[in-house]
């Protein structure tokens, strides 16, 4: 059968005079050719700049002149920098509170996991906040919190509370921005869990029901373990989202009041690229700290993926 096929290969290599070396190593060369453009691009714009940033953090540089080597001076300065301390602390607040998106998303997913008329549309509308840009989310929430006309204070007033200026209060501001960030993030976790719930094994659920499990016990012991893959992704995405928070802060408060809503990513930008001066080296040092925090999580993610890969093949 197909006598001509095995011949084709030989014929081609003959007519083109391809050297035997290429033919013999085709299996090894092919992946290299496919990888080359992607890897080059990625190395040029992502891997290499990471190394450069590390290097730069040992220099003082205004972005124009010659960088001067200052050793670990940038890092020493960080230790005494009050603004850095506030930003770092805020980053931890973001990390801890952003994780609330996971149970909140699960809650909404459980609430919506029914078969009633129009539920599909409801699900997509609940997902809505994730699709719009954080810039718009920030704007929307700035108005929501507005002390003079904001909806929040209208509601508080309705229940007889005094108005609160969330974004003008150094104590509340970070929580206010995190709440705004939780809105799209919860929507994302919801969609992950809706998909996960779809795949829950109905037989196990029935079996557990026959054993008398229901409510919270059922959720915790039967459903949540089956949702593990969804939880893992929700966790990864939420952690990254928390550490990347920049847009909302930039739009809603620009770091204020008195720099109390800064996080590392924002503070770094401020130091390196805004009117506060072009201190590239110092900015790079802040970025390195942020990167190292992220690295703990990246290592954990990769380790989990590696365990899975080993199991797969």
């Amino acid at each position: 059968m197909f006598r001509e096929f095995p011949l084709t290969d030989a014929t081609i290599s003959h007519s083109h005079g391809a050297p035997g070396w290429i033919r013999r190593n085709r299996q090894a060369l092919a992946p290299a050719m496919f990888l080359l453009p992607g890897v080059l691009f990625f190395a040029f714009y992502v891997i290499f700049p990471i190394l450069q940033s590390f290097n730069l953090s040992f220099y003082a540089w205004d972005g124009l002149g010659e960088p001067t080597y200052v050793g670990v001076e940038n890092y020493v300065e960080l230790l005494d920098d009050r603004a850095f301390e506030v930003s770092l602390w805020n980053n931890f607040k973001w990390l801890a509170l952003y994780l609330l998106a996971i149970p909140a998303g699960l809650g909404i997913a459980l609430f919506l996991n029914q078969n009633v008329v129009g539920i599909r549309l409801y699900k997509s509308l609940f997902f809505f906040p994730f699709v719009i840009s954080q810039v718009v989310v920030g704007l929307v929430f700035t108005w929501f919190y507005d002390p003079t006309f904001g909806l929040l204070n209208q509601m508080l007033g309705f229940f007889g509370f005094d108005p609160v200026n969330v974004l003008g209060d150094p104590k509340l501001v970070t929580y206010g921005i995190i709440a705004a960030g939780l809105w799209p993030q919860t929507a994302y976790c919801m969609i992950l869990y809706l998909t996960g719930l779809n795949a829950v094994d109905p037989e196990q659920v029935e079996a557990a029901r026959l054993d008398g499990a229901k409510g919270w016990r059922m959720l915790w012991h039967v459903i949540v373990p089956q949702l593990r893959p969804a939880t893992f992704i929700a966790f990864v995405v939420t952690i990254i989202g928390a550490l990347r928070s920049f847009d909302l802060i930039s739009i809603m408060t620009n770091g204020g009041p008195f720099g109390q809503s800064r996080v590392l990513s924002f503070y770094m930008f401020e130091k390196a690229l805004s009117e506060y001066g072009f201190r590239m080296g110092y900015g790079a040092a802040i970025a390195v700290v942020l990167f190292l925090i992220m690295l703990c999580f990246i290592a954990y993610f990769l380790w989990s993926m590696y365990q899975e890969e080993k199991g797969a093949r």
Partner: protein
Amino acid sequence: MFPRPIQQASTAWQTTYQALVPLALIMWLLPLIAVAVFSVKPDVDFTTGNYWGMPSSFQGFENYGKVFFASDMPRYLWNSVMITVPTVIGAVALSCMTGFALGVYKFRGNLLLFFMFVAGNFVPFQILMVPVRDLTLDMGLYNTKLGLVLFHVAFQTGFCTLFMRNFIRALPFELIEAARVEGVAEWRIFWFVVLPLMKPAIAALSVLIFTFIWNDYFWAVVLTQGAESQPVTAGITSFNAQYRAAYHLMSAGSIVAALPPVAMFFLMQRHFIAGLTLGAVK
């Protein structure tokens, strides 16, 4: 099914549920609904303090007309299109190839390369900021759409490779084996055997990347300035500075800026969700 299907519950609870869902939705989207109402209000409503009442007259056409014909908004929107579409094409094309190479071939360092892409995709942007800005300046691409596109393509290749590689891994490997036995050249296997099977992944990834890039703000601020190259996310802030306290126009502008990804989501919902939730189910 969990929770227990509502159909098995009492009629009273069923009715309550049916009423509760739309109510919850309105609460959930309240901030957005407010902006939508703002955007059709006339100017006087804000000066007279009628923030939350009914619009005293419908001014939607005038407000949106202003956004489209009396501001830089169309420019920004066009810039966004010219940044987003090439990025989607570039990143998807590159990652089809990298995903194929990492998903199909066994070679030393395969997993290492793959993890490099994955890890790179997770790094905080700030560690790239200064060097990438510098690089873009050196290449003379600062404040150009091309500069932004090149960076986005490179960075998104990380995520796309993760996605594509896992998708290809799940394809039936026998197909490729069979083609090899027939002596089909590797690039032909890629083009004629694997690529057609990757269509759903390509669709899902395209919608996702479209949304990510359209909504990007950080890199737009770092790598561009001014109306000739800034995308709409960055443009909206200058738009807002221009119309400070003109809430009806700012609302209309925000809605226009947010609309394309929303439209994309509703048109391609199936692909979008398939993309976002890849890996959420075993």
